[in-house]
């Protein structure tokens, strides 16, 4: 019995949610990513770490095509989400971004009420209204571990919240459109340690229902929250493996230098 269970679990581990194949990205004439290959597993937290300027933000922003809004950005290669290439020109980016939510480096709530922030996505997609919408907002806020702190002041401005609360609100806002994947682009870099701890534990709990990809330049964070870690350097994936392996037994000198703090 135990072997069957183990096999089932292994299968789950093996399921690839996003497959990045030979991805190269240019901004103008500068090549930012060089033939990146990466398999992102479903219901796991995958961390992408590396020194600043290594292309990790560009990589994560390719996964929901946010780079589209940057002028003269060119991509080559493929990114398969559930087996479909999302870089294909026939893909509806609006539909894609519903499935792949994103949380940004700096908390960016709209200057609206807390409720309206979370309800923004469901409203524009016509997902729910009235009681149903109220429930969806509550569920999202609970999932983002913010409900208890804000339940009495949902009509207050989102900008009255602290930085950490704002970031969890942004997570709740992303959850409300019921995505499959959540991308987080250095979500804690603007937060204090206490708020960071809350977001980190949130990431771990989110993987039950979502696939989480987090970009960080903080390797301790990668070690604490992720199941898999990719180390990106000068636009190339230097190492990608189980987080424990990357940190305890890195196969590449550069990775070793980075995690032992010799540069970064």
């Amino acid at each position, binding site marked *: 019995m135990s072997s069957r269970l183990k096999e089932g679990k292994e299968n789950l581990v093996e399921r690839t949610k996003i497959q990045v194949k030979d991805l190269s990205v240019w901004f103008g004439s500068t090549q930012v990513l060089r033939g990146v290959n990466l398999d992102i597993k479903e219901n796991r937290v995958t961390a992408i770490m590396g020194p600043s300027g290594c292309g990790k933000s560009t990589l994560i922003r390719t996964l929901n095509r946010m780079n589209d809004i940057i002028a003269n950005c060119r991509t080559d290669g493929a990114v398969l989400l559930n087996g479909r290439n999302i870089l294909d020109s026939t893909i509806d980016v*609006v539909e894609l971004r519903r499935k792949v939510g994103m949380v940004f480096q*700096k908390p960016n709530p709209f200057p609206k009420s807390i409720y309206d922030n979370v309800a*923004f996505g469901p409203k524009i997609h016509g997902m729910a209204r009235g009681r149903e919408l109220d429930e969806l907002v509550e569920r999202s806020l609970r999932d983002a571990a913010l409900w208890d702190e804000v339940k009495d002041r949902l009509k207050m401005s989102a900008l009255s919240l602290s930085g950490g609360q704002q970031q969890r609100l942004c997570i709740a806002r992303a959850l409300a459109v019921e995505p499959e994947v959540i991308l987080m682009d250095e979500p804690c870099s603007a937060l204090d340690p206490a708020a960071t701890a809350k977001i980190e534990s949130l990431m771990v709990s989110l993987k039950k229902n979502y696939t989480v990809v987090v970009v960080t330049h903080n390797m301790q964070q990668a070690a604490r929250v992720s199941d898999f870690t990719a180390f990106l350097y000068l636009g190339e994936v230097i190492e990608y493996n189980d987080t424990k392996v990357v940190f305890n037994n890195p196969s590449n000198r550069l990775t070793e230098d980075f995690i032992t703090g010799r540069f970064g």
Partner: protein
Amino acid sequence: MTNRELKAKIAFTAIRASALIVVAVACLLILHIVVNGYKIVSWSFILDSPRRGMTAGGIFPAIYGTVCLIVLTLAFALPIGLASAIYFSEYFGSKWSSLVIITRAASNILAGVPSIVYGLLGLGLFVLLTGFGFSLLSSSLTLSFLTLPVIIAASEEALHSVPLAYREAALALGATRWQTVRHAVLPYAIPGMITASILALSRAAGETAPILLTGAAYFLPRLPTSIFDQFMALPFHIFTLSTQSVNPAITRPIQYGTVLVLISLVLGMNLVAIMIRAYYRKRVRALL
């Protein structure tokens, strides 16, 4: 004092003097008009028609004409101007983006076209070719052409002042371009866009050369009743009274009064624009 200190001293004296000259000239100018104009400006001056061959009475028809011009120009230029600004600023990277570069350049060149040239266009296109004649319609269409680049440039600036983060947030939630604009950009850009439009219209209100060629009249016994009528206008009234009448010295007080009314109207519009901006800023801040 070293040579270097002396140089600096002279330079900064010149700088301060220049600033003083500019401000002093401006103050003198406004003061001169107020001092000479306020004696004649009264309710009857504002609400009466000119009498005795324009040498007495008020300037109501000219005020009325200018207000009509502003309203019509607004109706023509605003929708197109705002739509252009939204397209230029918010639809970057769409398949028409090379078009954006050209149209924006066109808009910038338009902004530098002399107003008399707009007048020529209005004369040729609206008065003669399309047969609108010398009329409110021809003049306001001409003025809307003239204000369009101003509205576009200023509204674009208002749109640019909305943080990119709002757009990213909306797009990342799967909002379409228009949903992003409608819900995450426009609400915060509207005050700036209103301000921009009022400023552009205040410019239109003071323009003389274009309406000179397209429909402004020296004197009309009746107010215009349709957009195909000719009209009197404040700036044109100033021009004709001070240069075209037989003895301009007799009507000098009326001229000063008209100048004061025109300046008050134009600067009043500027003030309203500034107040609207301040009001919305306060509201946004209350939200913060």
